[in-house]
């Protein structure tokens, strides 16, 4: 966004909200509309600690801040987001450094028609051809700036179309065009209207345009003849009958030599399947996927997580406990196969296993492997061939059983056992596969209506050993304890420590205090953060070690 546009938008915003801003923002009925918003400020001090590998921060204070403001008036809405990274917190790309209006849009929406001009987020199907989204904790924003239109000519039929450029930190890059159509046959075919079987079909097509550039091949004196328009298409279905469900999506991508696939010309494809069954107290889900060369970015030469046009759904469990999530799985868009089974059951009250209050169990297992490939060349070739059902190296495996039981009216225990295997190659380095056993006990004591005490104990036994040459500080055997006290319904304080007691290094203690009132939350923490990787939905970012103070303020109005 250039300076002139920024100024115009700022002036328009002030006029719209009629200065002074804060008195008005809380008011309803501005120009007949409503203003809502939220503000988040995260700050960090970090200092050098050679034992965990953290460094001094030249700026002393690092901060990520943002304010979203949304104005709605009937069918019309407009919004903007101001972001400030001064300087970005550890783990966030330094290209975010700066401040300004990072997102702005106007939108008009009726029951049958919607149009958005400016920045927007969108997803076609499961996102295998297009998913423009934002995750502030990953430092990821693939918003598209352009025009997004959707049209529902009849109930059950939706068409979407978009064109725009993707956000790249404080710039926009590439050119993305997309179309999507979805038909709910039960709404369109009159005789199916009352059917217990529900079927929705959809399809999408997305293409990107890039100009030419010189990328030399491995053969001296030759360069790549690059495709300027690269397309990806998918078909999908969603079938359900009572408690049964079956979803499937298949996507293909044309020749797309890029930095992720080492500039090979092989077509890409991906298949995702999900079968599920649910009834009261029970749910089961089985997922499978195969991804082959489906990394799709709006700029072929950009690595990292920015500028992805598409997204491959993750089929590993998103763990929350510290040791279970210490080795998260990063989706390998260049090629992987995976299976996941998930089962939840509630033993009813007053049964042998349910006891007085019932018992919940949650069993999850996933296995991800590489593809069975045969290399036929490097840059400027088709790269490799792969067999559809063949598997390659094991990348990741995970089995966890979680049992949650209310022991009394005031005590609830959640016990978890997990087994995990992790191949470091998915993080880009060689090494032996890590095999980890994890135990977690989580006890919540509801002392009274306003006071809750929570204890958490974790243990992880691993066959990995810390090696200074590799410097993976997650290796070894670990124990952890956490005590968290919530009092007066507004305050909480927690103390935790993770300690590598065998074959590892590190002692990571943390203390944090928080206060919540209405829609405002303030949190202050002090401690050490181990370097590692965090992943959300298979999309990851590196987190460097830190040692110091963190604080966070969020509020909405």
């Amino acid at each position: 966004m250039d300076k002139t546009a920024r100024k115009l938008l700022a002036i328009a915003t002030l006029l719209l909200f009629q200065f002074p801003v804060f008195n008005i923002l809380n008011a309803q009925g501005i120009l007949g509309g409503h203003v809502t918003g939220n503000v988040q400020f995260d700050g960090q001090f970090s200092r050098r600690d050679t034992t965990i590998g953290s460094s001094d921060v030249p700026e002393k204070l690092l901060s990520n801040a943002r304010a979203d403001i949304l104005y709605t008036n009937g069918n019309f809405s407009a919004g903007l987001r101001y972001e400030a990274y001064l300087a970005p917190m550890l783990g966030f790309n330094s290209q975010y450094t700066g401040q300004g209006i990072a997102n702005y849009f106007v939108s008009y929406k009726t029951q049958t028609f919607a149009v958005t001009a400016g920045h927007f987020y969108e997803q076609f199907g499961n996102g295998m051809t297009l998913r423009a989204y934002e995750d502030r904790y990953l430092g990821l924003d693939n918003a598209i700036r352009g025009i997004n239109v959707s049209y529902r000519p009849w109930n059950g039929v939706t068409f979407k179309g978009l064109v725009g450029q993707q956000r790249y930190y404080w710039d926009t890059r590439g050119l993305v065009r997309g179309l999507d159509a979805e038909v709910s046959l039960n709404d369109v075919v009159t005789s199916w209207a009352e059917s217990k079987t529900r079927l929705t079909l959809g399809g999408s097509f997305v293409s990107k345009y890039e100009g030419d550039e010189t990328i030399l091949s491995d053969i001296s004196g030759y360069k790549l003849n690059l495709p300027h328009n690269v397309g990806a298409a998918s078909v999908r279905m969603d079938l359900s009958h009572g408690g049964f469900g079956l979803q499937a999506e298949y996507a293909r991508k044309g020749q797309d030599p890029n930095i992720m696939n080492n500039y090979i010309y092989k077509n890409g494809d991906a298949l995702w399947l999900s079968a599920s069954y649910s009834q009261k107290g029970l749910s089961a889900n089985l997922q499978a996927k195969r991804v082959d060369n489906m990394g799709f970015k709006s700029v072929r030469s950009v690595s990292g997580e920015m500028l992805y046009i598409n997204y491959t759904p993750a089929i590993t469990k998103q763990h929350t406990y510290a040791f279970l999530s210490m080795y998260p799985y990063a989706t390998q868009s260049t090629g992987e196969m995976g299976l996941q089974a998930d089962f939840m059951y509630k033993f009813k009250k007053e049964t042998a296993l349910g006891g007085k209050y019932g018992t919940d169990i949650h069993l999850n297992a996933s296995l991800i492997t590489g593809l069975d490939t045969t290399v036929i060349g490097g840059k400027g070739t088709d790269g490799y061939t792969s067999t559809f059902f063949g598997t390659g190296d094991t990348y990741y495996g995970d089995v966890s059983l979680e049992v949650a039981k209310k022991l009394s009216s005031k005590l609830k225990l959640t016990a978890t056992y997990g087994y995990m295997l992790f191949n470091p190659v998915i993080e880009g380095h060689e090494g032996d596969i890590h095999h980890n056993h994890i135990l977690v006990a989580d006890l919540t004591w509801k002392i009274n209506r306003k006071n809750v005490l929570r204890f958490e104990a974790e243990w992880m036994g691993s066959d990995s050993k810390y090696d200074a040459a590799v410097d993976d500080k997650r290796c070894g055997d670990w124990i952890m304890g956490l005590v968290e006290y919530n009092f007066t319904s507004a305050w909480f304080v927690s103390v935790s420590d993770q300690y590598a007691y065998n074959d590892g290094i590190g002692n990571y203690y943390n203390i944090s205090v928080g206060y919540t009132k209405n829609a405002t939350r303030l949190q202050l923490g002090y401690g050490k953060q181990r370097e590692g990787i965090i992943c959300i939905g298979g999309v990851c970012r590196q987190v460097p070690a830190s040692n110091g103070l963190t604080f966070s303020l969020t509020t909405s109005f």
Partner: protein
Amino acid sequence: MNKSRTLKSIFAILAVSLSLASCDKIEQDNYIVFSGAAGEWFDGNGVSDHSQRAIIEKYTGVRCVNCPNADIAINDAVAGYGDKLIAVAIHDSSVFTRPIGQTPCLSTPDGDAWSHFFGVYAAGQYPTAIINRTLNGNAWDLFTPTSGINSRVDNIIGQTAQVALDVDAHNNNSTVDITVNLEFLQSVGSDLTLTLLLIEDGLVVTQRQPDGSDDENYVHNHVLRDVITDVWGADIECTGNSGEKRIAQFQYTPTSSDWKLSNCHIIAFVADKATKQILNAAQSEIE
């Protein structure tokens, strides 16, 4: 319109849209093309013609009403100076280059890169030209090429060439074999680059005229189609000592089947790698 007809219409629109935005397909034997940037240099036999030539790069566009007048002036100058003046017509990405109707777009990414570098695009005035990428004071000597060509050309070709240059091109089964010979007539201390261009003549593409009308039969000559080397040229391996003779051979496969090789010729120019200023230029038909 009933429901099924509307549905069919929407699907038809979607199908057409999809086909328009469909992806490019590169054939397997065409995944890599000659880059031109790695031509190997050897000791050569020298250059018989020691002429100092000038090359005029004209930034133009099919919607630029004054550009036909510049074409007349440049064509007159080329006719007058013979092989001492070489012309290139560059269509960048300005609004003036947008095709009129369904006519082909003559813009090139390389020409656009030059336009941005030399400030033509930013200035937004078309036609604009520059001869041998020379400076006027501290700024590029950009000018409107409806006049002022001859004085600039005279100033350049009146000097003794530092480097004599000769280029030869042959069509070898749709691959162009290019041979470039250099001879240093004076010592040159700076690093030099060689840039090779594919130029097409006789393109009939609609051009807006000074009176605002559109001439569907306008013939465009000297049109830059491709920069065979890197956009800023390939390094010349040489000592730069007076009397040194170097030769390099290149093979080039045009990247578009829309270009008629029978209407094309090759331009070569030697430039100072740091200052971008052109020392000498030559051109050859593709025989």
